[in-house]
């Protein structure tokens, strides 16, 4: 058994390395296939700010050399992979001399903070609603909860965001309509700042939670219905186990596995998350950076951001893969 566990671990690690390498390679190739030259776009912007500039071709060549884009493609690829291995994301082309890692560092805590909390809340609420909906012994009133939750899933988060702003920021004035904290707050380990962040984060988080909760509920409900008809459930009922134990240990525990996989993928992909929500609420996260990278064809920024996304998703999947045997003994024994 120990040998099979090690083989399982090695297989998963190899798959992890392959996924990351493939992802990084694709992210090197894809931006270069897109039309448009990042240096030309950057120089065009500079020239726009500079009045009459008659030597823009020289400017383009100078910047191309500075970013190493005049080197052969293979050399660029080798340098990119080497830098990626050393977590050196390089300089942004559109925002030079900003380093991509500094830009990510500034935006990531906000995006991770907002979206992780919103995703977890959405997961917990949706899964709970779905589990109760699919449980025959659940109160009938809860059956109304699913249609209500699903109703909001058809609204994009940014649309709901606008509605929430209208109702709760401008109408009732309960929450601020923009930013991550009050202009006069000094960030730090203090209660005022914490309250300000929570106050400012409530509406963006609500826009995400309310619009995504239904998906979790729907998935969990289907799995609970499938699980409740299994033989082991009938046996457990026949043994006279308490309903609460049946619900949690036999129903939810078995039904939740696909949900956990989905959660891992959602958390891993959080960086690519909610550009429009950040835009609507002027939230200082990193999704906006990715958008700017794409618009400006900023290879370094796109590669840096997507590297994080790739490593995030691959790591989350790896963790789930390694955690699965703990959740489901059948996997531990190599049955699936």
């Amino acid at each position, binding site marked *: 058994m120990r040998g099979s566990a090690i083989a399982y671990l090695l297989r998963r690690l190899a798959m992890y390395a392959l996924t990351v390498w493939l992802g990084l390679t694709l992210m090197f190739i894809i931006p270069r296939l897109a039309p448009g030259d990042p240096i030309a776009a950057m120089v065009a912007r500079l020239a726009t700010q500079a009045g009459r500039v008659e030597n823009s071709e020289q400017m383009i060549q100078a910047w191309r050399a*500075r970013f190493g884009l005049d080197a052969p493609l293979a050399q660029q690829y080798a340098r990119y992979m080497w830098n990626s291995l050393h977590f050196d994301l390089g300089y942004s082309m559109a925002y030079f001399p900003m380093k991509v890692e500094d830009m990510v560092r500034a935006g990531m805590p906000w995006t991770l903070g907002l979206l992780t909390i919103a995703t977890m809340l959405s997961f917990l609420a949706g899964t709970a609603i779905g589990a109760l909906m699919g449980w025959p012994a659940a109160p009938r009133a809860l059956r109304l909860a699913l249609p209500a939750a699903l109703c909001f899933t058809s609204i994009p988060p940014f649309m709901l965001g606008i509605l929430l702003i209208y109702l709760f920021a401008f109408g009732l004035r309960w929450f601020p309509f923009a*930013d991550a904290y009050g202009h006069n707050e000094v960030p730090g380990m203090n209660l005022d700042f914490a309250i300000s962040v929570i106050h400012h984060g409530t509406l963006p988080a609500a826009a995400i939670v309310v619009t995504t909760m239904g998906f979790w509920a729907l998935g969990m409900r289907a799995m609970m219905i499938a699980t409740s008809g299994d033989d082991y459930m009938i046996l457990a009922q026949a043994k006279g186990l308490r309903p609460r134990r049946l619900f949690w240990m036999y129903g939810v525990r078995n039904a939740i596995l696909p949900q956990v996989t989905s959660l891992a993928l959602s958390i891993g992909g959080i960086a690519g998350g909610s550009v429009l929500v950040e835009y609507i609420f002027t939230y200082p996260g990193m999704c906006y950076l990715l958008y700017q990278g794409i618009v400006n064809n900023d290879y370094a920024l796109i590669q840096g951001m997507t590297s994080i996304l790739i490593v995030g998703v691959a790591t989350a999947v790896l963790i789930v893969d390694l955690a699965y045997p703990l959740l489901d003994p059948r996997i531990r024994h190599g049955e699936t």
Partner: protein
Amino acid sequence: MALGLAAAGCSLHGPKHDEDRAETVVFDLEGRVVAPDLWNPYVPGARLDQGLQQALIEPMFLLNTETGEIEPWLGLSMTSNEPMDVWTLTMRPGVKWNDGAPFTADDVVFTINLLLENGPSLLLSGAMQQWVARVEKVDDLTVRFHLAKPNPRFKLDYWSVKIYNSIYILPEHIWKGKDPFTFKNYEPGKGWPVFTGPYKLDRFNETTFVYRRDEQWWGAQTGWKPLPAPKSLEWVSHGSEEMRTAAMVDGSIDSLCDITLGAYQALEHFRGPEVMAWTDGPPYVWLDPCPRALEFNCQHPPWNDKEIRWAVNYCIDRDMIVAVAYEGTSAPSRHFFPAYPPLERYFRMIEENGAYERHPVWDYNPEKARAIFESKGYHRNRYGYFEKDGQELSVTITTHEAAIELQRVAQVLVEQLQNAGIDASNRNEAGGTWMDNGALGAFDAHIGWMACGSMNEPWSTMDTFNASWMMPEGQRAQFNIWRWKNLDYSALVDAMGRLPLGDPRIDDLYRRAMEIWLDELPAIPLTQARKLLPFAQDRWTNWPSKQNPYMHPCTWWQSTCKMIHEIKPVPPKPGKEQ
């Protein structure tokens, strides 16, 4: 979460001050600032319009687009020798950096040499390399520029805020020895960034920039100008137009960048006369310097035929474009100049010599268009489109993905061309791709503003059509992206370019060049560009307007430095606290 964020260093940089809203002017900032701690104005990543070039940096001169005058600021005068290849700048005495160091000719010489040594990569360095052969200090307040070739517009184009900005002078005592490519110019402990403006940077994050008045500002100390009235200035980004408008309804912002008519009407509904724009009534707008045009690649058939271009012109109903795409907030255009007062005499000049009778740009006449197409061998096919040799007359008009205004224009235009028998369509392209395709000539037609340049004299824009800028398709063109080649026109424009500003010999050259341009119509003028810029008058007054045109109203330009000195607080109403 909050504690984690603080620990991660996502901070609002700088000390906390509770600004009194009544003493603070809040300006609109379009979009988030991706690199907020970058205060080096010469690198590509720097934003300039978050207050850096309005509150901190002062220009040498300002071009007033209303009067056409070049107004002195840090500079007192800038004159050239007769061949216009040596320019002498005399600076105002008593100017100081906000750390107390004197602002001298050494700083100017240092800045220009820094640009020359690090060109062409830094902002404006390419232009300096192109023009400046050598710069020398004459005395503490006088600098002499020896140009590589004569340039009558050296002062106007680079030392005056003509469009958006001008040369930024840097303090030598701080920048000396720094790598201008990587130096961020931000060190709060040392009081950086240091410039000469009447405000100092207080704190910032990606969406909010706060500046506090420098009570020791040199201008007040020397008696040149009193301190500006606002104790604080803020530039705040509120994201979408809806949020920005809502912020003004809410009273949390005093000035907005461009908004739609619908948004302005909402403001009027909620705030009544407390909001104002450039004009009291419709169209409310100030005209942007870059009129909009349907621009062809004049090397691509059939658009290389001037008669075909004229036929397309006859298919265009500009009044409808203004009514539908602009909701009435712009004006039709029949030339490539912005309709600014200093240029009006040039407009009159071609009007009075009958150019528009010979070349009726505004004539919406599909019948005339049909006659031209038929004379060129086209006939209507069963789908209603013109066709020749089995090929339908079609055109894809490309637009910049971020330019919503131009996309609206394109949509109306497509409809008009379709009705006239041209299979027109509109395609949005990512900004970088659109610019690239334009420069490389990889387009048939697009809605553009590429003739931008003239503000108070006609040469800047006219030279963009000069054949000397022609590049073969596939090679990058800096100007004349339309690839229109007319040597007679170019010779006239070259002759204009050699004359000093305001030289009477320019007039005749201008008339003759415009005659050729109108006859050939390499780009079809559509509309003036517009900016609807609301100001709130409940806390601050004396905002610029058509009735009070002391300066143009664009708060993202460097010329805002003058507006900051002009706006005044609204006196508190008796018995009511502000």
